[in-house]
């Protein structure tokens, strides 16, 4: 990682006696795109507001470039925020909105005009300077909010679910735009979202949060392919959880019994014992659906099929009643590839594509988390 820009250490915060952040520590590097991901109520917005200076921690310190800014008011921090509902000044034109921060710095008029122009050009709104916010579409208001925040050339841009109010297509466009802006400006972006897809596609690193604590901190690939715990695995993407039992431990390999089959797997990083129960995690795209007369895998039947354009997503019910999600790409050899409901198949996966997790005390997911995870998928 490059040099540290912002570091939070031992941050705790309570609202009405309820802990929102619990001794959380996090270091953010200069120039990175870091995403705070989690269900609502996980503390991600509070954490962002603490960086902005809108909230102060009950305990812990916030340092920016080595300077303690824990109690520094927002107006004295070289960071700017893009708010969830844009928070544009309704009585000012687009120009005045963007110029506001520079006027507060008492910059000369000519410089203000030039820099506002430049910022608006960056978000392709240079022809809208005289409009009022209510005369703009949601996407345009969003761009004004971004221009207003970057015009001051902050060390860090804080984005609080900035795309959540936009429709799907516009959101995709803005995701690309934001990435481009970040590359061009070279400043650190801290992005808050509950949308795991958005987090995976945009971030250099993802901080997965739950109940005010960091569940996992890593690159999108690490978080998706090697989730640290059951929560992360369920929250980020879809996952099949197969119950496994250790039947043999031999050097770096172990044998795990899954659905009555013994699979020879790599030994995980956590400690395993004979007969221990563990989770074998497989993403739907890691599942292989085989012909019913295949010798490999477990028998089952198709109970659901969804055509997704580039993939065919199916749910297979095994003989013991458990369900397996599979997602297969269409390939050019067999464009008519499809399943019918009730079709008999066998299910397997490619060795080495599984991920093992120890069982945790607090499973399964509560309804609330289930909802939050559902929410994040849409």
């Amino acid at each position, binding site marked *: 990682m490059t040099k540290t820009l912002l570091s939070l250490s031992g941050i705790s915060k309570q609202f009405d006696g309820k802990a929102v952040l619990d001794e959380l520590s996090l270091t953010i590097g200069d120039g990175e795109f870091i995403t705070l991901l989690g269900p609502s109520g996980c503390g991600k917005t509070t954490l962002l507001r603490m960086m902005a200076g*809108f909230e102060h921690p009950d305990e812990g310190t916030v340092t920016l470039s080595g300077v303690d800014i824990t109690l520094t*008011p927002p107006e004295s921090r070289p960071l700017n*925020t893009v708010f*969830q509902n844009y*928070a544009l000044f309704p*009585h000012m034109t687009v120009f005045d909105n963007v110029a506001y921060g520079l006027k*507060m710095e008492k910059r000369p008029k000519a410089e203000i005009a030039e820099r506002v122009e430049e910022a608006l050009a960056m978000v392709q709104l240079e022809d809208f300077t005289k409009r009022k916010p209510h005369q703009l579409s949601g996407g345009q208001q969003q761009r004004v909010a971004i221009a207003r925040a970057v015009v001051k050339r902050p060390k860090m841009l804080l984005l609080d679910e900035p795309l959540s109010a936009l429709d799907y297509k516009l959101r995709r466009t803005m995701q690309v735009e934001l990435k481009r802006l970040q590359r061009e400006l070279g400043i650190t972006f801290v992005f808050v979202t509950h949308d795991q897809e958005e987090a995976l596609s945009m971030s250099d690193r993802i901080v997965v949060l739950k109940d005010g604590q960091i569940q996992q901190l890593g690159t999108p690939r690490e978080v998706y392919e090697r989730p640290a715990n059951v929560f992360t695995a369920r929250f980020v993407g879809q996952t099949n959880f197969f119950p496994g039992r250790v039947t043999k431990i031999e050097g770096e390999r172990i044998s795990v019994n899954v659905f009555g089959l013994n699979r020879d797997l790599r030994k995980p990083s956590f400690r395993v014992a004979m007969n221990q129960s563990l989770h074998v995690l497989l993403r739907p795209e890691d599942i292989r659906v085989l012909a019913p007369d295949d010798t490999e895998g477990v028998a089952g039947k198709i109970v659901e099929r969804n055509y997704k354009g580039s993939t065919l997503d199916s749910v297979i019910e095994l003989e013991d009643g458990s369900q397996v999600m599979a997602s297969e790409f269409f390939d050019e050899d067999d464009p008519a590839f499809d399943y019918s409901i009730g079709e008999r198949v066998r299910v397997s996966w490619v060795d080495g594509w599984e991920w093992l997790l120890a069982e945790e005390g607090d499973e399964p997911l509560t309804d609330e988390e289930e909802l939050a995870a559902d929410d994040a998928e849409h």
Partner: protein
Amino acid sequence: MMQSIKQQPFRAAVLVLVWGWLLFLVLAPNMLVVGASVMTRNPSTFISLPLNLDAYRQLFNPLYLDVFLHSLYMAALTTLICLLIGYPFAWALSRVEKRRQMLLIFLLIVPFWTNSLVRTYALKLILATNGLLNSALMSLGIIDEPAQLLYTEGAVIVGLVYLLLPFMILPLYSVFEDLRQDVLLASHDLGAGRLATFKNVVVPLTLPGVLAGVMLVLLPAMGLFFVPDILGGSRNLLVGNVIKNQFLDARNWPFGAAASIVLTLTMALLMFAHRLSKRRLGEEGA
């Protein structure tokens, strides 16, 4: 047209009611006042022909001009005091937890259930020479002998502020309710301190409420004739007293009507300014 009225009897009834109301209870009386103001005073029939502008000319009589200006001054002072109390009050009110907010608004409205004349008499009892306030001050040893509180300009102002303060607070409360917290945070985030945020964001965004409050206080403050009657003595007259006196005592209807029209026009001017300020905020387009 007839077809659509037949098809929508309810809509037709509402329209007739509204237009009838406006025509007979708003437009007609006002036209009568305008009519009276351009006629000639007549001791036996109150008004008579010929038409002339004598009543308006009389408004410029230094004696009445003085009354008008003093009345305007007292009303303006009342409005200013209401604004100074009402603005922070409304701001605080909008920041209070919702359930307590309802209670506070309820307390603000409760006095309306008692006739304002009665409440003004109650105020008189408090301010009188041997009234509650003087007794309290004397028993606390702050003053040795009763102070002259009643029949002063101060008493009239106190009375007007007391009666009109809710009319300032309610429209202000409504604009503060609409004032979004994140817009204030955005201002801080962009480098503005409390004072700059107040000046550049809070004041412009609450201006329609200020103007609405001023409208609701300033005009009645010039017309509430019973307040000077009860609390003010003879030197602290309002325009409302002049109008009342012309109609009931001096029997000069044209002059009373002309004075009342000046009040109405002032109101119209304020409403126009209010509209302009709202348009500036772009609320009409939104």
